[in-house]
């Protein structure tokens, strides 16, 4: 009898064991200021317009040759794996290069990945405030006739209430499955 009870306790604690996120969890969730920018169709939008949905926020730039396209390609796979659940998730790309990333440029760039992806641009001043509140490091590096932007490579997950819940550091070990599992867990919880 005692053994059965012990087994039951172990089983129960096993079930209630907290889910181990692949990303960095923010506990308690962080409330960051809302912001207003321009989307790829040239319309003024606020992040809070997407309240009620899970938001994956990624900061990059269209001239970015490697990590940004890789991440967007991964977003596309995440969307496919989520299937119907993807309707409750928004993928937002915020530019780090407002000089070159006009709404039209953003639109053409995002369309090569998935037309449902949302692009945000705006004035440098407006964007700087957003970068700052998310703690984004950004350094413009001129090379020849062009320039690159070294930047923080993290994805930020904002829950349906508008709170920052999770971030993922982009590295080679972060798989599409990891992202999907974390997203599904956040949507259930």
């Amino acid at each position, binding site marked *: 009898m005692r053994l059965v009870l012990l087994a039951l306790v172990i089983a129960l604690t096993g079930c209630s064991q907290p889910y181990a996120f692949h990303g960095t969890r923010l506990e308690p969730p962080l409330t960051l200021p809302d912001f207003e920018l321009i989307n790829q169709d040239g319309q003024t939008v606020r992040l809070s317009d997407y309240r009620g949905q899970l938001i994956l926020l990624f900061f990059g730039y269209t001239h970015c040759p490697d990590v940004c396209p890789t991440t967007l390609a991964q977003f596309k796979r995440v969307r496919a794996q989520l299937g119907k659940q993807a309707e409750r998730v928004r993928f937002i790309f915020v530019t780090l290069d407002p000089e070159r990333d006009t709404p039209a440029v953003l639109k*053409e760039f995002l369309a090569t990945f998935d037309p449902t992806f949302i692009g945000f641009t705006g004035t440098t001043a407006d964007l700087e405030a957003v970068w700052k509140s998310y703690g984004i490091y950004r350094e413009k590096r001129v090379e020849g006739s*062009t320039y690159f932007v070294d930047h923080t490579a993290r994805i930020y997950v904002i829950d349906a209430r508008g709170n920052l819940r999770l971030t993922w550091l982009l590295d080679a070990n972060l798989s599409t499955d990891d992202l999907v599992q974390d997203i599904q867990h956040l949507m259930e919880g």
Partner: protein
Amino acid sequence: MRNVPILAIFLAGVIHLAVAPVHYTHAPAHGIFFALAGAAEIFWALAFWRRPSTRLYYVGLAVAGGLVILWAVTRVLIQPFEHEPGPLDAGGLVCKGCELVGVVMLAILALQGRLSGVEKRSPLRLVGQPLAMALVVGVGSLGMGYGLEPYLPTLASQEEPMSEMPGYDHAALSSGATVTLGQLQISGAWARPAQMGGTSAVYLTIVNTGEQADALVDVQSPVAESAEVHEMRMDGDVMRMQPVARVEVAAGGRVELKPGGYHIMLMGLTRALAVGERIPIVLQFEHSGQVAVEATVTSP
């Protein structure tokens, strides 16, 4: 029955017009020529359909036939305003097929006297004369192209011809297989799609089958203002991109240029890179020398 050849030539005109903008981007002169040829064919088809005449019959055969001859000749000879002969692409084949069907059917119908508005004449006059006229149109426009080319450099193709690049090996490239340069084997080259003026990255694998170490020291591509090997590196949370002077390929070793590591950065693209097309990349190695490879534009 009479409407079939008219429709065929009309269709050829529509194809010419449709591809004119694409041709304009590689050589403006070609774009202009395609637009004019397309407009002429469409205009002719409408005119002949409304009011067929002997004179229009000759004009149609001369124009459509001349375009077929011009096309055939420029598959072998270097095209005016370009560096190489034109490709045997599907669009061109369909277009020329339409023109050929149109021309041949018109001639047969005329010989049978079944083309209303066109006088019945001897076969020599109904076939021989337009054939001669088509030859004049075809060869004449080619000659005119060559003649105008030196005076209109802005209308010519700005792309560096791949065949003039050192290390160009057409057989190896067209087979799409691994390109071999001495003891090095280069394979799996692909590039990211990108907008004109933008940036793209090229990835490939280099295998060194020899006993001497080598290094990739320089890269270039005619589709970009400049090209460099870069390395992506994580510095804490920050993704940094930095130029790499050389990529070592050890004896018997293998180096992969892949997302999240080394890549060939194409900067200041002179044109858009669309999925499916192939772009030339020239690699310079310290010991093995230079080689050109083709990277397929792929959406990952």
